[in-house]
């Protein structure tokens, strides 16, 4: 259960204040599938990073499963990121010197899981994303779609309850993007809360709910299936939500 209340994220640049998020309140139930949309610079990534405990709101409250995140120690936040949250990035962010298997196994290293078990679990996870044959290939030898599937295997290896994806298909062609979306849908059906930042109406349509951000504010809530095109979605922010 994710619950943010009146959160702001403010960057101070010189004597100017820049509000990446303004007064955002939202509740996301376990197992929901949410899409976050909005023009570039509207605060989508900022919101996602805060939800993933990578960043903290400047003001307001963020409760994850009933616990106030602001009160947690840095080490507790690391544990939450390790066990509860899976991140997927537009730029994949695989470690270039590690092969696919080792990349998937990486989070388990931080949990002190012994090598043999890591190896076995990572191999199974690669199998689940259809990359068992690519286990000992380095990221440079993989296509974009394959890289993102390795990243998904890595993000889910610790069995997180929340999966956060920041434009996961942004760097992919339609075909491999489709494969990635299918994997994400599958994970959502297994019970994970899935929050996807996207520009693509086709991606957003898969979500149950769509949050539309404008200039740091959530300006609209839309049912995923009703998303048609960006023009109508972004052009006319509702004045009072």
């Amino acid at each position, binding site marked *: 259960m994710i619950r943010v209340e009146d959160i702001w994220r403010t960057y101070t640049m010189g004597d100017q204040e820049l509000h990446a998020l303004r007064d955002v309140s939202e509740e996301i139930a376990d197992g929901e599938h949410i899409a976050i949309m909005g023009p570039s610079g509207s605060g989508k990534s900022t919101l996602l990073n805060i939800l993933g405990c*990578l*960043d903290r709101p400047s003001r307001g409250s963020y409760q994850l499963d009933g616990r106030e995140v602001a009160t947690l120690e*840095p080490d507790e936040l690391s544990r939450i*990121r390790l066990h509860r949250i899976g991140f997927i990035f537009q730029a994949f962010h695989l*470690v270039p010197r590690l092969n696919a298997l080792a990349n998937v196994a990486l989070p388990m*290293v931080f949990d002190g899981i012994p090598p043999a078990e890591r190896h076995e679990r990572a191999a199974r996870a690669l199998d689940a994303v259809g990359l068992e044959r690519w286990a000992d290939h380095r990221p440079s030898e993989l296509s974009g779609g394959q890289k993102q599937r390795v990243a998904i295997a890595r993000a889910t290896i610790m069995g997180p309850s929340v999966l956060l994806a920041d434009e996961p298909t942004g760097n992919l062609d339609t075909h491999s993007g489709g494969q990635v979306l299918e994997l994400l849908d599958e994970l959502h059906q297994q019970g994970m809360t899935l929050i996807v930042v996207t520009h693509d109406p086709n991606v957003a349509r898969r979500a149950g709910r769509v949050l539309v951000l404008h200039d740091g504010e959530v300006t609209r809530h839309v049912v995923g299936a009703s998303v048609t095109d960006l023009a109508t979605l972004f052009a006319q922010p509702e004045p009072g939500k």
Partner: protein
Amino acid sequence: MSWLEVLRFSGHALGQHRRRSLLSLLGVTIGIVAVISLTALGEGARRYVTDQFSSLGSGLLIVIPGRNETTGALPGIGGVPNDLTLDDARALERQLPEVVTMVPITAGSGSVSHLERSRQVLIIGSTSDFRRVRELQITRGRFLPTGEVSRGAPVVVLGRKIARELFDEQNPVGQPVRVGDWRMRVIGVLATRGTQMGVDMDEAVIVPVATGLRMMNRNSLMRIILQLRPQVDMEKAKRRVLAIMSERHDEEDITCLTQEAVLSSLSAILRTLTLVVAGIAGVSLTVAGIGIMNVMLVSVSERTAEVGLLKALGASGREILAIFLIEAVLLSTAGGVLGLAIGWLLIDLLVALYPALPASPPLWAVLAVFGVSFGTGTVFGVLPAWRASRLDPVAALAAR
């Protein structure tokens, strides 16, 4: 994340930049080679000197011509010292009741020949007691005869190697040899003794002191060794020696050393030298450490995105710190071990070239290598590692 896992992860990361890693650890290697070989040399010199002097035994006073340099004047400056003659030696023996044994010594080089074989040797002139203070053994014949010091019989005792070179396996005892221009008779052969106080007794010949002085055409002894009764006050005896000699020479123109004093001052000087050398080496290690720090800072900035990712995946700040710190420690320790190996090799080479020098790195230096290289990595790795651990994950992920 266990230390073993950190080690594996860090080691793997270092392996990606083999050349850079190697270059940065070479600094430590050079520093450690300096520490090891220089301290080994210093320690070797110290041991060499103390070994030599302690083989003399205690309770010895050594009288040498020329004034003690600690009184200001260098020997030879401010007047040529009077000869230290055999008469002086005999006077000391007579006038000092605490003297048990008096051994006059003279030395020079010359040739010794038998038939057509000839050899350049060190000629030592002394008395029968020389054998005891130097702890020499005889394999054949006998040592110098006891008795009147100034008689100067034409007899010679050969060092083992000289005997072999002139006579092969024949018995030289009773055979005539020519020492310089002098015809002498071999009366004995020394057992192998090796180098002692910088003199290889195997390559020396020993003649009666009066013979030696005549042969070298001089009056002055090189030194007089006085063996005192046990439990005698060395300082008091020393003052009496100086008094007697001042009276005989009308000035204080001799130096009187006790073995203990020589030993401790030489040992102190050489130990200081070893420490100075270790200090210089320490400076070079600091430079090496800064090199490692720079490489690690570069590594951290190159891997900023990776740090962000590791944090997003759930690594704690402490784990990030450990990863980069261990990388630095791995670098410096590898450099240290390499330096230890190379330093050791150098010392072996040196000892092979100069077997007389018992150069080996002191144990403390070997242990210090590990401590120092480990410490270098830790001290100079802290800043980069701390920087990495403090990186803001969101900003770090956006890097590159």
